[in-house]
């Protein structure tokens, strides 16, 4: 099936493209980019006037709970949520049951993703067996089956020696180690940022140091082993400063941030104990939030990710201290960025494309996608003027635990193309 996208404002910083063009897709590729293109016979013409066309968005940090916790999300429902949110690729974290720590587990996710037929599933393998932090997982086997990166996300690898072994071993493959930085001897029992929030609400605190200490450790292990390091869901100003300093030294260190750490902080948690605001790492200070926003602007943060963490209603509709950590994010990520950073001109469209499409592909060692002839037709078309209200009914995700319920946001993906196939059409997921 061929598609001619007429009059889209295409933005691709990789090739310096930032203008209104026509783009013709045929098969799995972009076959022409230009002005006044004529639709070949049989091609569907899509009026893209007023919309933005960008390389397909990539969320390199999601939890699809499949296998093991299919009551929260499956690869199919997660793919629908990703597509609805405008994504062509998602990288799935390995804290499934069983933990995705073998080539078989990687193959399962890729096959399930293909069966769902919406977005590319890019599985991340565990660093250690069972994410227990004790013995190396079969990392090479997983690379051969298609793992795009390695992480024990959900836990920090507690032993520095074990992390050194992991990073040393990963360094032979062209893959990054993704570090969930949490020193559990400091964060034990912590359910909320340590400080004002923990005092006000009377709960054990999760101190910033618990994160920053492991960021520092893993940067030094990057220096020692040469293994490229990617810091997951960075949440504090000081942690970001450590990453900045490592980059300035030329170390292969990158990092990511979530929309909830960019747009929410501990002051948003009030005496109603809204458990959709319970995160790991927790919402931090307002000053941290603003520092992270600056990191998106100045380039020290590489990627925007959601840490999409679906949980069933009964796992969130309970007392804060026993509620599960996390928020879903795939379907609000782009609207939040458009509303709070692009519309306000805090960042340009080009910068948005870098953090949501270009950089995640590089970190995951995926082939570049460019808006030019011959490139893979993985594209996202965005309507910047469409308003959405975030309600439970809005979500394709199986779970509804969003920190942003009730928000009204401006700008959303209208169409998504994956391998030239239209997976989202006018805001409606295919199938």
């Amino acid at each position, binding site marked *: 099936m061929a598609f001619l996208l007429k009059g889209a404002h295409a933005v691709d910083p990789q090739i310096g493209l930032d203008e209104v063009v026509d783009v013709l897709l045929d098969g799995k590729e972009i076959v022409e980019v230009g002005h006044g293109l004529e639709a070949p016979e049989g091609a569907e013409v899509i009026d893209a006037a007023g919309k933005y066309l960008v390389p397909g968005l990539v969320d390199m940090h999601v939890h699809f709970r499949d296998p093991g916790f299919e009551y929260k999300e499956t690869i199919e429902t997660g793919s629908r949520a990703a597509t609805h949110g405008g994504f062509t690729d998602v990288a799935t974290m390995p804290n499934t049951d069983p933990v995705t720590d073998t080539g078989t587990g990687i193959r399962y996710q890729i096959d399930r993703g293909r069966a769902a037929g919406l977005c590319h599933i890019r599985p991340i393998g565990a660093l250690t067996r069972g994410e227990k932090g004790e013995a190396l997982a079969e990392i090479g086997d997983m690379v051969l089956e298609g793992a795009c990166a390695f992480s024990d996300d959900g836990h920090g690898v507690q032993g520095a020696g074990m992390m050194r072994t992991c990073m040393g071993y990963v360094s032979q493959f062209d893959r990054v180690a993704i570090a969930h930085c949490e020193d559990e001897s400091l964060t034990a029992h912590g359910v909320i940022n340590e*400080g*004002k929030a923990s*005092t006000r609400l009377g709960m054990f605190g999760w101190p910033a140091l618990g994160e920053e200490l492991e960021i520092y450790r893993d940067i030094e292990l990057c220096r020692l082993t040469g293994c490229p390091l990617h810091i997951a869901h960075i949440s504090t100003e000081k942690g970001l400063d450590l990453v900045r300093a490592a980059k300035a030294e030329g170390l292969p260190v990158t990092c990511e941030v979530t929309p909830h750490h960019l747009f929410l902080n501990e002051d948003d948690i009030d005496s109603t104990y809204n458990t959709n605001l319970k995160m790991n790492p927790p919402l931090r200070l307002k000053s941290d939030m603003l520092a992270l926003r600056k990191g998106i602007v100045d380039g020290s943060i590489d990627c925007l990710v959601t840490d999409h963490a679906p949980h069933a209603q009964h796992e969130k509709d309970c007392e804060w201290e026993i509620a599960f950590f996390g928020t879903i994010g795939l379907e609000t990520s782009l609207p939040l960025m458009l509303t709070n950073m692009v519309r306000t001109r805090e960042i340009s469209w080009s910068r948005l494309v870098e953090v949501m499409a270009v950089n995640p592909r590089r970190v995951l060692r995926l082939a570049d996608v460019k808006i030019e002839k011959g490139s893979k037709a993985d594209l996202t078309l965005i309507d910047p003027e469409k308003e959405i209200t975030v309600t439970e009914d809005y979500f394709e995700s199986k779970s509804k635990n969003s920190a942003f319920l009730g928000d009204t946001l401006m700008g959303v993906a209208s169409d998504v193309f994956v391998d030239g196939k239209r997976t989202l059409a006018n805001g409606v997921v295919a199938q």
Partner: protein
Amino acid sequence: MLSVKNLIDTYSLTADDITQILDTAAAFESVNNGRVIKKVPALRGRTIVNLFLEPSTRTKSSFELAEKRLSADSLSMGGSTSSVVKGESLADTIQTIDAMNVDMFICRARLAGTPQKITENTDAVVINAGDGKHQHPTQAMLDLYTIRKHFGHLDGLKVAIVGDLAHSRVCGSLAPALKTMGAEVTLVGPPTFQVDDPDWFGCPQTWSLDEVIDSVDVVYMLRVQLERMEGATIPSRREYNRLYGLDMKRVSRMKDNAIICHPGPMNRGMEINADVADCARSRILDQVNAGVLTRMAEMYLLLGGENNGISA
């Protein structure tokens, strides 16, 4: 009328709310302390559920007696008999009881925010009888009652709250209530027992009990919450007693009219020595008595009673 529908925390209470509670409690003295038939019909026909999800002796007894004094119908549940233990969610438990049509929930819970969560599942009035490390507002009211009764006022008094501040819902509710009433509060305890953010309380803090003992009107000793330690942050009972325990030597340095309070249960020989607990300055049993009065007042006012309408 109080300015709040439920009694969840003390920082939502105005000085007027607190004064109403204390004055109403004073009016109940004649019911509880002055006669043989200790009962008035103030809450006849009203139904109160005592939901105690965490062990409690004095608070639970105090509420139950206060309910009986006011002629309310009450039901006590919790602990090993509750369906929460069987894995039922809090929301389901509350909705189930609520469907039986009750007027008030008294809740004691291990988890912070539980009383707030209850308010989301019922229109009945909710009183927090202690939630995790968060708040224990009815304890604060009985403490204020005891202190006011001794001094005749609260404003301008100097109060040292001493001990395990970090794990203490008593401190969390008492300090803001004292400040609302114009008292000055100092937090005393080892650094590892200090609250995460003392600035939020707006109270000075010190590591030294000896530094403040001779200048305060009230020495409020907190129980060391041995069950909430989870990774001990003090080396031993013996050392704690030596550095922070209230012994007769320290008591002898207190101001002439100064008093000693403790929310109980006491760890005798740890935060407070036995002879101190039983000495003339101790108001510990007065606090227990005030607990019945102030809880009567809270239930009465929250269920629509007027401060001046008591026919005791």
